[in-house]
């Protein structure tokens, strides 16, 4: 089944990105296709490669990058929400790309299921 994901919150402040990550991973392991993960609101902060969490904690953006590399997942950051928060190409973690909000609506249209994680 084709699944699309919307992540509304940034890393650490809320569990939303962690839940979305675990859900995405489980969906892939079950053989589903994750069409795209779209990052909106503060969720765009997941794409900030400058984040340096302490070494005994998870690195949320790096974890998305690795999952995307491993399974070819399209990680899209909303351009309007990103610019508002200073997330630009030069600080974008690998595997993320910046595009328009229309890419979220596309998920809703093209995916069999759309799942939202937020606060």
């Amino acid at each position, binding site marked *: 089944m084709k699944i699309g994901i919307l992540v*509304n919150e940034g890393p650490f402040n809320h569990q939303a990105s962690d839940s979305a990550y675990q859900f995405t991973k489980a969906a892939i392991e079950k053989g589903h296709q994750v069409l795209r993960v779209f990052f909106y609101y503060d969720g765009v902060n997941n794409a900030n490669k400058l984040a340096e969490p302490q070494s005994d904690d998870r690195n949320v953006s790096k974890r998305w990058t690795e999952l995307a590399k491993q399974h070819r997942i399209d990680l899209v950051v909303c351009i309007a929400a990103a610019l508002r928060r200073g997330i630009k190409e030069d600080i974008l973690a690998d595997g993320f790309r910046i595009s328009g909000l229309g890419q979220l609506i596309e998920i809703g249209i093209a995916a069999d299921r759309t799942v939202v994680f937020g606060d």
Partner: protein
Amino acid sequence: MEDEFQGTLETEGVRKNFMFLNRKAPYGSIYAQEIQEMVLISAAFEQNTAVVFMDDGVYQIKKGQDTSATGMKNFSPTYGIFQMEKEDAEEDEDVDVVWHIVVEKESMEARGLTPEDFVIDVEVMDAAELQKLMAEQDVILTG
């Protein structure tokens, strides 16, 4: 690998029922403002659209918002575009897209509001009616 995803997903000829569910008050957090942008973009995709205001979300469309002293952007006039989209959809015979702009009755009454308090025309639905509309949706987006 980024190059592999420059394309867009296939959306031609598909029409789904989209609901945008607003449960949060404006200004205290950004959700109301950014979900508004979501609704505006989605209009271009000509999908059936239901914009719902419930719980504190009903405060988003309250008349008389004046943000000048807070220094924040007053985005309440933009709700007028929702109403225009709805009217366009109803008037255009070539486009059979259905729009709903809904306020949940229980939420409105709990906050001492009436339809006259809102900047746009709304359909007032009780929880049972809204539940029925919700069950008809393919995609529900929230913030």
